[in-house]
Structures are given as structure tokens and as C-alpha cells.
């Protein structure tokens, strides 16, 4: 299947491992990604505090560009980008006045129809059979904690795919690969995201709570699909281990886990780019 692709700004930097694993796995699953020509930053967590119109116009420009390219479905791997794009489309679709204003700002017509998919949603809807039949490895009794983060399932009236308090799309993907998952309490709790630079102590606490709860629930690894969550969980884990005495736990992107289970060599999946690598090597390499 063909789908427009909105990579998000972190794919070339902090989330280059996410990018690598996506590029490895998608062709195997019969999904062709068409990167939106000249897409721009979605505004993330900064635009909506500066100006409402700005926070809608930034995602709107990329959506209009995708439509211009004759695409009306879009894959958005980053949770924050997904949330901004879906939210903007929702607001514009429900307000003709806003639509007019935005079209004036982006100087392009804005499409009526655009459907958005995040990673576990894409796999869940279009690739479960191929994933199931392509599994070449087994993780036996190793269990994963599926961490969605706060933005993939909220607000509940705008993002209607998956339950907003107890989502299961990632668990379904793990199930298709016979990978065990744990029931745990903080699957949709905020990791502190955008405070990573400005209030790092907050991130240590929130992300530390998430790691502790995952481990208490019996998880051997955490699987996620948000670059900022991954960065907080993986890159900042060493400090969290010092502060909160948690044990080391590898953090994988969902596409890395799927790639691993489908038999891809770990070099193609970006494992070497992780910071928390000791346990990762033990379990996955």
C-alpha cells in the first residue's frame, strides 16, 4: 500500500534509529512511504503556547502539501506530530472560518479528507498478517511494557482510534509476534517530553516513575513509538538509575522490535545508537 509519510524533525537527529528501523521494515510489510515534498515542522509543544493560528497553520501546510500530491492517507511516526496533525485537521474540519483563515496563511487549498496513522495503528490495521507470517525469532518468556505516552490516545474525541486510557494496538502487534506483554499502570502517562531541556529534573521524575512501574509489573523491556519518550527513557536512563535506583531496562521503538522479530540484522535497526545498551545486548543481540 502507498501512504504519505510525515517523518517529523527528530528522524534525522535524535531518532535516527527509529528512522533506520522504519526504512528496513516497511518494504518487507508491503508499505511504500511517500515522503511529503517540502514538509515542515509541526510546531510540536511550542507553537500552541505562542499562537493558536500558528499552531494550526504549521501542521496544515504539510497536510495541504500531501493532498496536493494526491495522497489522502498519512503515516506519522512521532506521537507529538501525530497529535498536532490530527488535532489541527479536526479543528479546521469543524470550522469553516478557521479553514478560510488557515488557507490564507498557508496560501494553499486545504483538503476535506485526510486520514492519519501512527505506528501501532498502521501495523494493527494493515500489517498484522504479514508480521505474523514473517516472524523468524522468538523472545520466549521475555515480556515487554507497551508505552504509548500521553499523546497517541488523547484527547478522546479527536483521536478515536484505540482506547484512551487502556490502549491495546501495540499489544496486538506484540501478540501477533508471540511476544508477551505486561499489564501495567503508566502506559499513557506523560514522560515530561518537552521539558527535557528546560526542566530536566521533571523528566527524571516522570520518566523514572514510568521505568519503575514497568519493572515492578515484570517487564524486561519497554517498547514505544515516540522519539521524545524514547529519548527520555533511553538517553536519560543512566541518570535516572542513579537518582531512583532503577535497574537497567532496554527501550525499543516498535519498528525495531518488529524488525528484530522479522529477522533483520541488528545493524539495520539502529540498536547501536541507543544509550542504554548492556541489557539490550543481552536480550536482543
Amino acid at each position: 500500500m502507498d501512504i504519505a509519510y510525515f517523518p517529523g524533525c527528530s528522524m534525522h537527529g535524535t531518532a535516527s534509529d527509529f528512522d533506520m528501523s522504519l526504512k528496513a521494515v516497511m518494504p518487507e510489510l508491503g508499505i511504500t512511504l511517500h515522503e511529503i515534498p517540502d514538509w515542515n515542522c509541526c510546531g510540536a509543544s511550542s507553537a500552541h503556547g505562542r499562537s493558536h493560528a500558528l499552531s494550526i497553520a504549521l501542521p496544515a501546510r504539510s497536510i495541504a502539501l500531501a493532498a496536493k500530491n494526491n495522497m489522502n492517507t498519512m503515516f506519522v511516526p512521532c506521537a507529538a506530530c501525530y497529535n498536532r496533525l490530527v488535532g489541527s485537521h479536526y479543528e479546521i474540519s469543524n470550522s469553516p472560518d478557521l479553514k478560510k483563515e488557515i488557507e490564507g496563511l498557508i496560501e494553499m487549498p486545504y483538503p476535506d479528507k485526510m486520514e492519519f496513522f501512527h505506528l501501532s495503528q498502521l501495523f494493527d490495521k494493515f500489517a498484522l498478517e504479514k508480521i505474523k507470517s514473517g516472524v523468524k525469532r522468538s523472545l520466549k518468556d521475555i515480556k515487554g511494557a507497551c508505552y504509548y505516552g500521553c499523546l497517541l490516545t488523547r484527547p478522546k474525541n479527536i483521536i478515536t482510534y484505540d482506547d484512551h486510557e487502556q490502549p491495546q494496538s501495540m499489544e496486538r502487534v506484540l501478540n501477533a509476534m508471540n511476544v508477551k506483554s505486561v499489564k501495567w499502570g503508566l502506559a499513557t502517562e506523560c514522560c515530561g517530553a518537552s521539558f527535557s531541556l528546560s526542566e530536566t529534573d521533571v523528566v527524571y521524575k516522570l520518566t523514572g516513575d514510568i521505568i519503575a512501574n514497568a519493572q515492578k509489573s515484570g517487564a524486561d523491556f519497554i517498547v514505544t513509538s515516540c522519539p521524545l519518550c524514547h529519548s527520555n527513557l533511553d538517553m536519560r536512563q543512566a541518570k535516572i538509575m542513579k537518582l531512583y535506583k532503577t535497574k537497567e531496562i532496554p527501550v525499543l521503538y516498535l519498528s525495531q522490535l518488529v524488525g528484530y522479530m522479522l529477522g533483520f540484522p541488528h545493524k539495520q535497526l539502529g540498536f547501536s545508537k541507543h544509550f542504554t545498551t548492556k541489557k539490550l545486548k543481552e536480550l536482543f543481540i
Partner: protein
Amino acid sequence: MGHHNHSKDKKDTRTIIEELSHENILKCYQCGKCTAGCPMAFKMDIHPHQIIRSLQMESLDEVLKSQAIWYCSGCQTCYTRCPQEVSIAKVMDALCRLSVDQKKVNKKSLKIKKFHDSFLNGIKWTGLSNEVALVADYKLRSKNFFQDVLLAPVMFFKGKLKLFPRFIKNTKAMKKIFNKTREEVR
């Protein structure tokens, strides 16, 4: 103690907030679910439900000067759980914008505002967020030069820090969008 309107032209707080956020704060009956679920409540000087209450009681000034509004992470947990479907996150956004406009930003929250300024400044010029440029800009604005310095070389060698910034082709379009939305407090 409320602030009384002395002129017919002055809007009440409920109207000001509704115009900025499209949220009706009078719907709130103080159940407290927002605060109970808020991941950042532990850092806030005024809790989310208390902010709504202060606004209902016309204490806008106190709220605009709080640290709390800048600590909102935008996770939408409040809106998702509110029985009256009030988007407290949207109200927080409006309060941040109003606080900047009225020059009432709490001194302790300035670094959070500066982070957002750095981020937005970066995408205004290039259309994309470039991590090295963002960190450099933020360090200059916040004068916090040494944080995360140890992580940087590791990130670079793992290919996670690209030294050269990336640009979209139509950077003119970005500047237009930013300039046209600059004046409004919306």
C-alpha cells in the same frame, strides 16, 4: 477577592478566556479530576482545578503571574477526564499567551518560555527543528551552558546530532506564516 469591572468596556475574565480558548470555564464544578490526573501538578504553585476556580472568581492576574501555567505539558489528560469536557490544556495555552502579552511571566518560568522561543525561532528560519541549533540557541538564551554537555559527544558519535542544519525549500512560506500570526494574542 475579586477584581471589579469599573468600566462597561472591560470584559469579565470568563469572556476573555472564552475568546482566547473557546472554553467556557463556568462549566467547571470543581470535581478535581484534572488535578488528580495531571502529571505536572506536583510542580505547580496553583493546581489546575484551582486555576479554573481563580478564573471563575475573577483573579486573572494571580493566574497570569503563576508558574503553573508554564508547567502544563499539554498531555490532555485533564480534558480527557473532565466530566464537563473543559479543555484545561487549551485554557493554559491561552493563559500563557495572555501572560506574555501583559508582561506578567513569572521569573522562575522564564526558562520554559525561552525554550519555546528557541524552538519557534529555529523553525521560523529553516522550516524544521534542528537539534544542534535549538540547543545552542536555548543555551544562549538561558545562560545555562553546562547542562547535558557530557551527553553531546556521545550523541554526536552515535549519529544523533547532525551538525549542519536542514532547511525546507520554501522558507519564505514559513516566515509568512510566522509574521502573519505575530501580533495576535490568540
